[in-house]
């Protein structure tokens, strides 16, 4: 089987969002677009997977190691999921336009986290 071809995307903060931009570059063994939104794969996670060639993955259905995650997509709304993936050093895309808060506040940094993201904030970098 030929190696899968991956492409990079740049993900920027949306209106009233915070953080980023993040460059997401899936690679072999680290290509999961890890969706932790509930209700299946969120369209934004699917969109990122489609553009990058990464694998859309439902974090509520299956387990994966943090080292396999190219980016986590969350719709936390503010307190818990918002901090846990940055705490683990995982790139995190939050759908809601929120600023860092909550007990895990200190882990949420601009180089790991971006919020207020919709499909229009995801830009393909490679042809």
């Amino acid at each position, binding site marked *: 089987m030929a190696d899968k071809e991956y492409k990079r995307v740049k993900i920027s903060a949306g209106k009233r969002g915070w953080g980023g931009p993040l460059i997401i570059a899936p690679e072999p063994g680290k290509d999961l677009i890890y969706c*932790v939104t*509930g209700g299946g794969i969120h369209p934004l996670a699917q969109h990122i997977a489609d553009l990058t060639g990464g694998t859309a993955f439902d974090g*509520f259905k299956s387990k994966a190691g*943090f080292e396999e995650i190219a980016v986590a997509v969350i*719709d936390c*709304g*503010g*307190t818990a999921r918002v901090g846990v993936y940055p705490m683990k050093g995982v790139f995190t895309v939050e759908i809601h336009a929120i600023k860092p808060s*909550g*007990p895990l506040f200190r882990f949420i940094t601009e180089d790991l986290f971006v919020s207020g993201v919709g499909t229009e904030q995801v830009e393909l970098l490679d042809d």
Partner: protein
Amino acid sequence: MIKYQARITAIGPLVAEFIDHNILVLFGDQAPEELAEFSIIHDGKEMHGTLAVGDKIYLGDDGFAVMAVGEVASNNLKTLGHLILKFNGETEPEMPGDVCVEARPLPAIEPGLEIRIEEG
């Protein structure tokens, strides 16, 4: 009407740190491990209606009046068993996932404790 009923099945090692901030995070038992770390895991499944100001959230026998409900809070509870309870007495949710209740000390949180949400 009882809107939600569940029993605590597990308590994550970081829950105490969140309680220090007057926050309890709940998740259903399908939550991935990294979320279970700071969450109260429970067996709740069905939700009746949506959360509203004036509801009462019982932790065992101790009922806390709901003072504010964020716009995504009901959906979080319904789909993921996920609830963020802030014991801060605020009438405006700070974050869209928040449910704010009366600001007073929490009862002891332990496995087997019943969580019940009653219509106000």
